[in-house]
């Protein structure tokens, strides 16, 4: 159950970078990639 929805606004260049990253196998789709980024960022930067 989602508790919060964040609406990202990304331009075509930012989306191209994410899509190439997905093409490289990092995640199956944009939402999954963004959630992966959040988890790994939090692991690295979390207090």
């Amino acid at each position, binding site marked *: 159950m989602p508790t919060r929805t964040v*609406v990202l*606004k990304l331009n075509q260049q*930012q989306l191209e970078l994410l899509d190439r990253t997905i093409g490289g196998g990092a995640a199956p789709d944009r939402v999954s990639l963004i959630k992966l*980024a959040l988890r790994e960022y939090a692991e690295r930067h*979390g207090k």
Partner: protein
Amino acid sequence: MRTVLTERRLEPGTGKAIELLAGQILRIEQVEGGQCVDFNAFNLHDYKEFMHCGRTRTVHGFNPSQGMFLWSQPPRERAMLYILADTYGRNDVLFPRCSGYLYESAYGFDAHTNCHDIQAEAQREYGLTPDDVHDSFNLFMNTEVSMDGRATITRQTSQAGDYIDLLALVDTLAVPNVCGADIMRTSNFGLKPIQITIFEATAEDLDAVPKTPILRSQRTPADFRQPTIKADRELRRDTAYRPQFTNVPIIHQPIAIDLSAEEAALFDAVKLPQYGDDDAQALRDIVFTWWEERYLTGASGAPAIGD
């Protein structure tokens, strides 16, 4: 064994434009020690391509030395020269060349040796004007960045016989000059001669150069929408001009991210306070910071030059 092609002495107050062909090495050597040398370089066949200190310092830092390249400016952005050897190891790409204005404004001189005018006089041999002198690669120059963000010059300790070897990767007009600063710490308050030697590189020298990428974005005049060099000084609007900026218009697309309670907690724990209640900006920052940390091989804002 390297073959010596030419040798010459650069006397204080002078510089020399030298045709340095691809595969040749320019050795710039201390005679007495303690002398800064300013250096310009142009593509010998197209002077509009030149060594760019800004690009060089983003790739290699403020003090390029042995094993690093001197790059040309965007959109050419090629490795023009390779620092094959550097026995002293202190060079600078922070400071501009010293100029007549510096010596007049700060010291009251009507005329004083200065790197801009020395470079311009040396470059004049090849038809270049004083406006063509560019930011210099400052050899044998000790500089530091202070905590308040200012660059400072300190004294140097190079000795007689210290040298730097610059290997040309493209045909180059290389222009070293003896720095004109005798009332600053740059050359320990003196002007001394410098020895110049040109060698033919050996196969071993050439094999020592790391490969750099050849990319579509490295454009030449053949790719320019305006390939003709402007030959008069007045700037006039081209009435036929229609802008063709890259990837314009920039169009944003929304992506809804449903966060679970656990993900929302993670997000709240790490989002940057500067974004306040703007979760969209905060999450975008996290995504691209993550990307930089995971995938970038160079410093942020610096091109990647490895294989």
